[in-house]
């Protein structure tokens, strides 16, 4: 009935398609945390990027406008966070949670306010075409991996490109090095003339903007259907915060982390078909309680967290001053 190769291909394809928004959230949060700020507002930031990006994209009938607006509106969340925590020295944890509450609230407020006049994605040719799958010539014809890796929509490739670009920026540029210094020890960075205030502001805004792009991706993935019971982001923002730890604050590792989390996320849908086409090696999948798939990624993160705390500082990518506000006068 089912072709095993086909099921395997679809499984791999969906791991990437459904879970790339996590990568945006994670990479954005890594950039933010590397500047020393622990922003727990990822969920709300993504929600704001999602809804405003989608509405703008529909209004302008253009994917590019949607991307830009989602980046800018989510960036405003980052600006708000910087104003409160960097300039006004508010508690970072509380501010982050506030932004989540605020973002989700605004999401539902705007969506329900629009009500009947909510634009359908099918009415916007620009968004439908922009989100359509792009087939790499030749590569997409390869068996299994052709479909799984080389026939996705443009936002998948953009997400991976951003992850690699941020990894390169953090590790191989002078500004990236200074940014890491700000996150490790803002006092020391300040004393050698790095503008810590500027670094924190810029990276909070850009990092939040990247999260917003992930929100925009979710909006398109959900066909822009606003129904008011779930938010499109649906907890992805929280998972992204856990993924930052899992990836050890390394954007390149975040790609791997996204795939691991995505593997379990997609497996809860695909366990049935996989067990059906590979009854011998994978038949046991049917016996696993489905709740386990939801718990496993967090269990792995907990293990990683324990392992990294046992190793102490060596090899940990966690910025030393993460979560601490920097008072220049108390240096």
């Amino acid at each position, binding site marked *: 009935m089912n072709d095993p190769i086909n099921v395997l291909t679809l499984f791999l394809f*969906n791991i990437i398609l459904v879970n790339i928004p996590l990568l945006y959230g994670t990479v954005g949060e890594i950039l933010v945390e590397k500047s020393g700020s*622990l922003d727990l507002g990822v*969920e709300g930031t993504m929600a704001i990027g999602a809804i405003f990006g989608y509405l703008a994209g529909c209004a302008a009938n253009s994917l590019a406008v949607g991307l830009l607006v989602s980046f800018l509106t989510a960036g405003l969340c980052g600006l708000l966070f910087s104003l409160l925590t960097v300039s006004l020295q508010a508690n970072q944890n509380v501010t982050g949670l506030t932004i989540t509450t605020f973002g989700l609230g605004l999401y*539902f407020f705007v969506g329900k306010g629009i009500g009947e006049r909510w634009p359908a994605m099918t009415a916007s040719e620009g968004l439908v075409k922009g989100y359509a799958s792009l087939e790499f010539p030749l590569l997409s014809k390869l068996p299994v991996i052709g479909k799984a890796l080389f026939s996705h929509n443009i936002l998948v490739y953009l997400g991976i490109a951003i992850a690699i670009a941020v990894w390169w920026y953090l590790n191989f540029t002078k500004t990236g090095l200074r940014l890491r210094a700000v996150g490790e020890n803002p006092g020391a960075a300040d004393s050698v003339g790095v503008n810590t205030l500027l670094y924190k502001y810029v990276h909070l805004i850009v990092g939040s903007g990247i999260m917003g792009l992930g929100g925009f991706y979710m909006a398109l993935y959900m*066909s822009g259907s606003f129904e008011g019971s779930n938010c499109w982001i649906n*907890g992805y923002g929280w998972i992204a915060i856990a993924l930052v730890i899992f990836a050890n604050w390394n954007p390149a590792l975040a790609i791997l982390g996204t795939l691991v989390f995505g593997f379990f996320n997609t497996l809860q849908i*695909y366990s049935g078909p996989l067990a059906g086409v590979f009854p011998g090696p994978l038949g046991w999948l049917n016996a696993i309680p489905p709740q386990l798939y939801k718990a496993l990624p967090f269990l792995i993160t907990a293990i990683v967290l324990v392992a990294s705390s046992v190793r102490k500082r060596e090899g940990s990518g966690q910025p030393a001053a993460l979560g601490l506000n920097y008072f220049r006068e108390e240096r």
Partner: protein
Amino acid sequence: MKKILALALAAAMSLSLVACGGGNTSTPAASSKPGASGSGADVSTPPPADSGEFKVGAIYINSQNDTAGYTFQHHNGITTAMKDLGMDPATDLLIVDTVAENYDDVCKAIDTLANQGANIIFGISFGYIDAMNDKAAEYPDICFSHGTGYMANDTNFNNYFGRIYQARYLAGIAAGLKSAELGNNSIGYVAAYNTEYAETCSGINAFALGAQSANPDATVYVKKINTWGDENLERQAAQALVDTYNCGVISQHCDSAQPQLVAQENNVFGCGYNSDMTEQAPNAHLTAAIWHWNVYYQTAIQAAMDCAGDASKFVEKMGGNAYYAGLAEGFVDASPVNEAVAAPDTAAVMDAVRRLIKSGDWDVFTGVKLSYTVVDGKVEIIKTDADLADNQGNVIVAAGGPSVDDGVIKGSMNYNVAGVQEG
């Protein structure tokens, strides 16, 4: 400091576990409508003679401001019923919303409504059951009515639910006819749960039997998402059904229209649930199994008013302590067929079966199977005695046997009929 940070991160992680289903945030637990009785200052405008003193109380699981979903359906039903009875929901309806299925919270909500002078209290969610049962004894002067539950007493406490499986059967006919037209016997079904609840598996079974009546070779592939509402998983599940089992029709037991949107994007077809989803997916949606909650709420509020202050007569006025209506009472139905995409004669066949079920001569879970012949738009229903068997080969009802709708009403149904496959 590192410890605190580690703690904070750990907290973030556990939050992410909890928040996965998170939608609504921090709505106040108790929000009462203004205008509760007892001010006495307003003497210039006496309340309407009929219903002025009568207050309806409701306890909702989600926000009363929802624009879709379970709470929305019930809120809509209650307000429609009240308007039809000449009451004003703005002043006569008392609401406590976003009440979790937690004994103490429900008790508090009931106390609030009782203090505000509610004459009848509706609780819409299954988990309210114990609190409602206990409070019904504590407040004998108030009528209590619990949706989807099974507890009741002989005086002031009843429960209510409906034969939605009859509507599912009708939707199944539309799906079966479409699958026969397509020449594709695979039908998908995105389900919140399956055999864990009689509510879900009876819906799946009835839908499958309806589909098989129109296309005997139809197989219904069920994909569970193990939660009542998660739009993301609903989409993934529907897409997987189309991709892996090549399903040509997608049905659903979940709130959002995502499965229907997926059907439309893949150029296949679908049957919705809870609301007519033709608006969301005009090129895919055939028909939906829907509830008319106002039918029950109007009956119940009228019965409570007829008690004339003596709540102990409520159960008597309702004609029993378990209300279980179906197609015949207009409590459930299939939404109008989307003629643009449905197979020919779909509406005619559904109408014929609708009349048959309403007449009471036949019901879904019996040892009699239906099939149809249509000549020039005239439908003839053919009844055949056949075993009703589960998908393990056990006979549930022997050929010609009577209905086992009891299994749905009492919640003991826990199997899938032949032709249903979980995957």
